[in-house]
């Protein structure tokens, strides 16, 4: 059977499963649509949250980023998991007790202000829309590589499938498909990793293989990898970083951003009790960790495998001839994600780091520049081929990558559509709307959101690469502090929170735009985006944490000089702090 047929079977079977779930789990009420009826078991919600959270970035890109950056990129591992501690202790249980359907719901009620609600809706929509673009393009890449269709056609297929289960089932349909998608993606991620770990270290558990002995050389795997990359002019894989302030702030921004992303928070509205929200955050992290503990192993092993492929006789011997390159290099060359240029004309592929300190060595070996560029994103997708695994493993990876992208896209689309139908239409424009009409409005906004996301996926704006920074920056600087202050302080009033959110958001956007271009228009940046120009060495991607601090400070200052919130609001804060009396999530 051809590889194409195998991929088709795996992807087709997983899609059939999602559609089957969509038909079975239709939403009959707004409560079904927004919070899956409010009766989701905490372990099951944990699994759905894991799929909701782990996007194309986690599945496809993260291991590649770590492979390229080594220790320095551990920030993604800590940052994208540590936020769950904040969620479990600072947000989820209290927001669950509050018992409404959306994040702006809480901000609007707690700060007795439709202005605050609208600011929250705006932040939510900007953060979620930018995030969903990345998912749709990720799905498009997976389709075009594995199913040999044009990526636009692939996107359309993905959009139709999401449309079916998200519009029909709302949160209810999304919850059960996310559970299925988690199972598909974790199997797809783990199986190739197990094979590769066995090949390199003899240890069947990749997370342990990372710290085991490399069978071929008898050295610890990481020591061997350090040695190989050093011979080629790269920084040691395990080398420490010098700019620790930036590393800390970047990790903190990712953590706060994770805790403040609305599509993750609303998953905790679906469990029956406050205590369940706490347990559920723990289970979510367990399911996430199954992938996140494997990812650093995949990263180091894939890097070593890649370099071994290019230098079969070791990094100090001759590189492989271009004519003799393996099949997977050829297939990925067609996608443009691997590029080769024979700069010194010797017919061999030299892959190394061009740097002043390595120039002498490179010249002595007759090299005239690095000849192979490998996009970080292909490491996980090409992993089974690099390790010569059977064709069905490749099919599995295709289905897994699509599951990761689609599950996150659906969660984001629900957050967007509920903000529009519940907060904008019912909350601000037409509070008298009947439940039936609100459900229809929710379905229509979901459909519109899918069309917009698909369009943006086909015509990604120039700033597609920076959108993740933007989404995390916004969530960290605006949404997280507002929610936390709403729960932990009775003194913060409507004026304080609006001033806080706007200044946190504003300062973060200005700092990002200064270095990445105003509104991401290339060439309009005020300062070059290099570490020398960053304020105190803080990268634009790390600024979310500073934006959050500004938000807190401004909100406290403004509240301190203005009046106290009314007594009823202080009672509301009091009530979210105690679990007793929590029903399931309710409408107004």
């Amino acid at each position, binding site marked *: 059977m051809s590889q194409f047929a195998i991929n088709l079977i795996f992807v087709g079977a997983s899609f059939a499963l999602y559609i089957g779930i969509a038909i079975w789990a239709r939403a009959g009420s707004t409560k079904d649509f927004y919070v899956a009826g409010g009766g989701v078991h905490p372990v099951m919600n944990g699994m759905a949250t894991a799929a909701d959270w782990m996007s194309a970035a986690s599945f496809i890109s993260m291991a590649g980023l770590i492979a390229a950056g080594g220790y320095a990129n551990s920030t993604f591992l800590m940052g994208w998991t540590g936020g769950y501690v904040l969620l479990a202790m600072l947000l989820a249980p209290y927001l669950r007790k509050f018992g409404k359907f959306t994040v702006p719901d809480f901000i609007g009620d707690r700060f007795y202000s439709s202005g605050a609600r609208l600011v929250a809706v705006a932040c939510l929509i900007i953060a979620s829309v930018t995030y969903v673009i990345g998912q749709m393009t990720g799905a498009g890449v997976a389709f075009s590589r594995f199913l040999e269709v044009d990526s636009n056609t692939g996107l359309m297929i993905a959009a139709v499938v999401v449309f079916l289960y998200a519009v029909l089932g709302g949160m209810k349909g999304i919850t059960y498909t996310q559970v299925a998608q988690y199972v598909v993606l974790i199997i797809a991620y783990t199986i190739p990793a197990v094979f590769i770990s066995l090949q390199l270290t003899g240890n069947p558990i990749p997370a342990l293989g990372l710290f085991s002995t490399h069978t071929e050389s008898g050295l610890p795997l990481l020591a061997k990898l350090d040695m190989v990359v050093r011979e080629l002019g790269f920084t040691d894989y395990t080398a420490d970083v010098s700019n620790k302030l930036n590393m800390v702030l970047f990790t903190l921004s990712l953590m706060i951003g994770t805790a403040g992303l609305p599509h993750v928070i609303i998953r905790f509205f679906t469990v029956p009790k406050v205590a369940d929200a*706490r347990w559920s955050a723990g289970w979510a*992290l367990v399911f996430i960790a199954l992938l996140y503990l494997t990812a650093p192993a995949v990263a180091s092993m894939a890097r070593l495998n890649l370099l071994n492929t290019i230098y079969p006789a070791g990094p100090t011997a001759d590189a492989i001839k271009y004519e003799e390159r393996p099949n997977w290099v050829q297939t990925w060359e067609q996608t443009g994600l691997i590029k080769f240029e024979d700069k010194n004309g010797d017919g061999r592929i030299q892959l190394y780091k061009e740097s002043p300190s390595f120039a002498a060595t490179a010249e002595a070996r007759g090299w005239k520049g690095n000849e192979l560029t490998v996009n970080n994103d292909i490491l996980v997708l090409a992993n089974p081929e690099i390790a010569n695994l059977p064709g069905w493993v490749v099919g599995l990876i295709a289905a897994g990558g699509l599951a990761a992208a689609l599950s996150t896209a659906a969660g984001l689309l629900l957050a967007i559509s509920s903000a529009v139908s519940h907060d904008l239409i019912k909350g601000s424009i037409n509070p008298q709307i009947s439940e039936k009409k609100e459900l229809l409005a929710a379905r229509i906004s979901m459909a519109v959101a899918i069309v917009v996301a698909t369009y943006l996926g086909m015509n990604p704006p120039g700033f597609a690469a920076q959108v993740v920074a933007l989404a995390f920056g916004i969530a960290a600087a605006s949404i997280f502090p507002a929610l936390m202050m709403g729960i932990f302080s009775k003194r913060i009033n409507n004026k304080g929170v609006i001033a806080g959110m706007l200044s946190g958001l504003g300062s973060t956007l200005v700092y990002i735009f200064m270095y990445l271009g105003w509104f991401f228009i290339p060439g309009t940046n005020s300062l070059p985006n290099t570490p020398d120009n960053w304020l105190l060495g803080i990268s634009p991607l790390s600024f979310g944490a500073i934006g959050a601090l500004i938000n807190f400070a401004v909100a406290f200052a403004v509240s301190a000089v203005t009046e106290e919130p009314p007594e009823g609001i202080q009672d509301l804060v009091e009530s979210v702090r105690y679990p007793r009396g929590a029903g399931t999530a309710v409408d107004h």
Partner: protein
Amino acid sequence: MADDKNMAQAYWQANLRLIAGCLVVWALASYGFGILLRPLLAGISVGGTDLGFWFAQQGSILTFIALIFFYAWKMNQLDNKFGVHEE
């Protein structure tokens, strides 16, 4: 009524103390051992590298999981002790 109010206050204070303790461990495992204190842990070797590297890539994640489950378990106890648990 006054008693109820005092109990509720005491419950919230206990919760805040528990959160503070958990967040100290949270920060120590990630920002401490994983990043800032890594040079101090350089002497403790783990599979070809040092303990700080392990904390940055795996140890902090395992610590986070333990923390959340500990917090959830402890809060259930507090909920019952102070009589604010769900019926």
